[in-house]
């Protein structure tokens, strides 16, 4: 028993660099050697999928993706953005993008270019990038889009007048561009709730980093956010939904199959399968690393506490 206490005592004062090495390995190895793990789809992600899917082939409806983050939160948010864009391209849904930080502008281009490679889509017809708009203009633009998008935003990222773009046919305001998804490492989706939803009834969803989930939960519970991507897990869930339904190919369903709770429960998508390109399973591979890292952190907490209690007991005995 004394030996055990000594080991734990030594472990208590272990150099933190050893912990860093263990964490690094527990993240790097699952990223380099992907393994199959189950992805359970949750309600907040499913709601976004079903809402977007309800716009399939409807030229009078559109989705707006609002990028309010920079490259630092990209590992968590980028797979969500690619998965949503893929879903829109797959199901012939008009999609708009806008960003509010100067260093988010290349991210939008990167996301669109990543997703559009596999689809025959054209800028100004199937999708439209509004480009960068200063954050200080966020509220005026949000409110302006409730009246008239073409007047409020005026031009796309290439400087073309929105009024002249075919994608703007039948798209005037939030009645048509009826879903806004804000991707951020903060609670910035709340601004859309306060202005676009409260005043114009726009549907708002959020794609956020896992650390911000708790902050946004009140709005999800009240229904002010119709759905939420909760960190990398949300991205992984959406990737699976797109794989299982939107990009599903069979003679019965040439353009993807409709959503079904039963199918998603039963379906297992192996990520080691080479049929799915890496860019469309990035979040699921990342979740493997996150799973191992979470387990490592839990093990660290348990080991730390065992050591703490054994040391305390020993001290009590001495006293």
């Amino acid at each position: 028993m004394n030996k055990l206490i000594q080991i734990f005592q030594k472990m208590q004062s272990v150099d933190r660099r050893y912990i860093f090495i263990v964490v690094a390995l527990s993240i790097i190895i699952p990223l380099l050697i992907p393994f199959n793990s189950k992805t359970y789809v949750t309600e907040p992600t499913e709601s976004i999928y079903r809402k977007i899917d309800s716009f399939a082939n409807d030229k009078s409806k559109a989705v707006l993706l609002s990028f309010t983050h920079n490259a630092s939160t990209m590992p968590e948010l980028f797979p969500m953005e690619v998965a949503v864009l893929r879903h829109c391209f797959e199901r012939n849904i008009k999609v708009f993008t806008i960003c509010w930080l100067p260093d988010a502008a290349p991210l939008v281009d990167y996301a669109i270019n990543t997703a559009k490679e596999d689809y025959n889509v054209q800028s100004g017809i199937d999708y439209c990038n509004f480009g960068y708009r200063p954050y200080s203009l966020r509220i005026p633009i949000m409110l302006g889009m409730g009246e008239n998008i073409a007047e409020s935003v005026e031009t796309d990222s290439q400087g073309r007048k929105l009024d002249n773009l075919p994608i703007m046919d039948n798209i005037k305001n939030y009645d048509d561009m009826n879903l806004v998804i804000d991707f951020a490492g903060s609670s910035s989706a709340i601004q859309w709730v306060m202005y676009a939803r409260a005043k114009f009834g726009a549907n708002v969803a959020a794609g956020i980093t896992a650390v911000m989930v708790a902050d946004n939960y009140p709005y999800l519970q009240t229904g002010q956010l119709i759905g939420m991507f909760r960190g990398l897990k949300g991205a992984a869930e959406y990737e699976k939904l797109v794989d299982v339904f939107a990009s599903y190919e069979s003679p019965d369903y040439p353009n993807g199959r409709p959503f079904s709770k039963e199918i998603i429960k039963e379906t297992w998508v192996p990520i080691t399968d080479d049929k799915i390109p890496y860019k469309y399973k990035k979040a699921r591979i990342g979740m493997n690393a996150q799973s191992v890292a979470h387990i490592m952190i839990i093990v660290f907490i348990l080991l730390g506490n065992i050591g703490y209690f054994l040391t305390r007991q020993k001290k009590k005995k001495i006293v």
Partner: protein
Amino acid sequence: MKRQIPLAIVITLGFLFVIHTFVPHKISQDFYDWFQTWIKAISPFAVFLGVMSLFNVHRTKISRRVPNWQYSVITLIGLFFTAFAGFMWGTQEGTPYMWLFTNVQMPMSATMFSLLAFYIASAAYKAFRARSAEATVLLVAAIIVMLGQVSLGAAITKWIPETSRWILNVPNLAAKRAIMIGVGLGMTATSLKILLGIERTYLG
């Protein structure tokens, strides 16, 4: 005058916007639309001021040779080179600006953010102790939420993700809402103080 004019602008415009919010008349709407054009014109000046300020701070550091002044040189080179690349060749796919973004900024920013994982792991091991009943509750909740976040949690038992959801939906929401109501009341009080000219610290 240096204080009175900005104060008068803030109080007048503040009250006009309060009126706009509560009186949906055409005059009020027209005023709001007119003001939006002003905001668009003011924004570029803020960017200009930001760049000037950044330049001045680092120029001073370099000229005074303060400790680690070399980093300021790198900052200024980065600022000018990135801006030059953007103005010269544009920001589209395949340009030097995009190359810099994908190969320098993206990995560096992600690296900074990912350091969080290492600090959390180290802090969890060194400091997360069940020293009291409250700390034990926090510890147990953290473990359940962490397991609920990954597929392993659901694989162990369906109760883990369900308990995790309950923790987020009930105790977490109660605390969050209390904080939000407090913040909301504080914001209202501060706004009123600014509108009435009681709070003037923003004038410098």
